[in-house]
């Protein structure tokens, strides 16, 4: 981002200009319960004249408040740049060792738009693998794996930065604890992502979610009233549009009234790398490759073969038949002829 203001520290700029250029800077004051500075006063001058009693109540010293403002602006700018900036071209995972110290001996490079399935029994090391990616391990975790971004060792500060989080996680049990409508909820998320067109993004997400969910919901529906399928559909659409994390991790999308194939495609279209832990043959075979876990390590990487792909049609047919039976059951019909 190049503006004339790059040379002027944010705290010296007249607040009117600051808030016009960076509307989200307002959050800094509202989150502390402070009034906004007047338009012609700089934030620095404003902080200088805050009475000591107010600082005492806030639990912060004057100098620290100034430092926090600078840190906040840095965060804000980097979030905005992340929103518009270059995306990740590839992520490479170099194998480490399994629970017995045996070499995994693999190098896996994945690029946005790819689907990788993850299979293996409970306790076989799937969670640790995902944690390694999330942490951007550099041979310093128990597995000794290394993670490279665009083929290079990432800057260590990325590990803890909010805007550079690598993994967004769509877990199996997903609840909403906020008492908000779908529209308010998504708008709140969009705001925390510094999106310019909050209303537009919110509308798109709700539309996409309704395409995925079996039964429609309105923007006014409270999030707490959504069914399991609707919540998942909403989160998949939301992650696809709003999350800056290049990798989406999905724990088994069950049959809860959601078009599973379309759901995965929504994420892939959003240029995500999709890592999917699943035992569902249809989903597993949607992956270009699958990682097989055993004893804390990656035992094999299997590329989906043309023959396997061809089998998918048969699995889909079986799935369609089962779905038909399920619907018949739901409609109170007898299930005598299969």
């Amino acid at each position, binding site marked *: 981002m190049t503006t004339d203001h790059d040379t002027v520290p944010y705290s010296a700029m007249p607040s009117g200009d600051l808030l016009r250029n960076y509307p989200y800077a307002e*959050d*800094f004051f509202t*989150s*502390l*319960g402070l009034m906004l500075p007047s338009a012609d006063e700089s934030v620095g001058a404003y902080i200088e004249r805050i009475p000591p009693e107010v600082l*005492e109540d*806030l*639990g*912060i*010293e004057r100098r*620290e408040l100034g*430092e*926090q403002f600078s*840190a*906040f602006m*840095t*965060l804000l700018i980097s979030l905005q740049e992340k929103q518009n900036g270059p995306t990740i071209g590839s992520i490479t995972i170099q194998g480490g060792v399994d629970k017995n110290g045996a070499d995994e001996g693999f190098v896996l490079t994945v690029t946005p738009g790819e689907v990788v399935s993850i299979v293996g029994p409970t306790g076989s090391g799937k*969670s640790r693998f995902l*944690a390694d990616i999330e*942490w951007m391990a550099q041979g*310093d*975790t*128990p597995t000794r794996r290394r993670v490279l971004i665009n083929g290079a060792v990432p800057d260590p500060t990325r590990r*803890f930065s*909010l805007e550079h989080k690598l993994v*967004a*996680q*769509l*877990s199996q*049990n*997903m*609840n*909403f*604890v*906020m008492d908000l409508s779908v529209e308010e*909820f*998504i708008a*709140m*998320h969009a705001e*925390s*992502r510094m999106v310019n067109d909050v209303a537009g993004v919110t509308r798109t997400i709700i539309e996409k979610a309704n395409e995925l969910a079996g039964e429609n919901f309105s923007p006014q529906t409270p999030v707490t009233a959504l069914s399991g399928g609707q*919540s998942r559909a909403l*989160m998949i659409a*939301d*992650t696809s549009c*709003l*999350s800056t994390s290049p990798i989406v991790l999905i724990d088994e999308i069950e049959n809860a009234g959601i078009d599973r194939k379309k759901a995965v495609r929504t994420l892939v279209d959003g240029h995500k790398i999709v890592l999917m832990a699943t035992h569902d043959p249809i989903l597993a075979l949607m992956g270009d490759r699958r990682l097989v876990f055993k004893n804390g390590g990656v035992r094999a990487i299997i590329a989906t073969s043309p023959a396997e792909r061809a089998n998918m049609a048969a699995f889909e047919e079986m799935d369609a038949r089962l779905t038909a039976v399920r619907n018949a059951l739901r409609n109170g019909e007898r299930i005598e002829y299969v």
Partner: protein
Amino acid sequence: MRLITVAGPPSSGKTSVIIKAAEALQGEGVKVGVIKFDCLSTGDQALYERKGIEAKTGLSGNLCPDHFFVSNIQECLQWGEQRGFDLLISESAGLCNRCAPHIKDVCAVCVIDNLSGVDTPRKIGPMLKMADIVVVTKGDIVSQAEREVFAYRVQQVNPGAVIINVNGLTGQGGYELGRLLSAAKETVSLTGRLLRFTMPAALCSYCLGQRRIGSDYQMGNVRKMDFT
């Protein structure tokens, strides 16, 4: 020895988070001890000991738990030195959501959970705003969007902190937190050190044991609400 102060609202998952980080560190040969500050009673010492983590409990009784903490932390450090720990973690609940005092140049951690709601970060005082590391727990229970909004709200009030998600049940993130803690600065002595911020002003008549209500009985540091 490295001293770490861990604070956070009750039930945010402090003990579980400390146990997960300590287990990861012990696996690497680091000797970890814990001091647990509480008000009335606690079963956490047994919880720690079951995991092979040496622990000591301090009950503040009718004293402000944070004043109790400051009055004892120097002796806690000595105890830790005597026991030969590499890392001593003090755990205290910020019961008024304000202080749970952090010490300058001593690694300060605040633990808060996603279930407490997105407005909570704004309601917590220096305990959160002055922490070096903010551990967010119970992320597995809420949606990805809520996790992101919550982390952003934490970053708004403490833009300088490292934010890390830890699952106290599965331990996800515990190893990573352990790495952060073991990189903390060494603490040799606390005498003469400064708290990061003052604790709430005190000493009104109620601090001294007054029980009667009414202006006639209120003396000292009293602040009245504005009803005009």
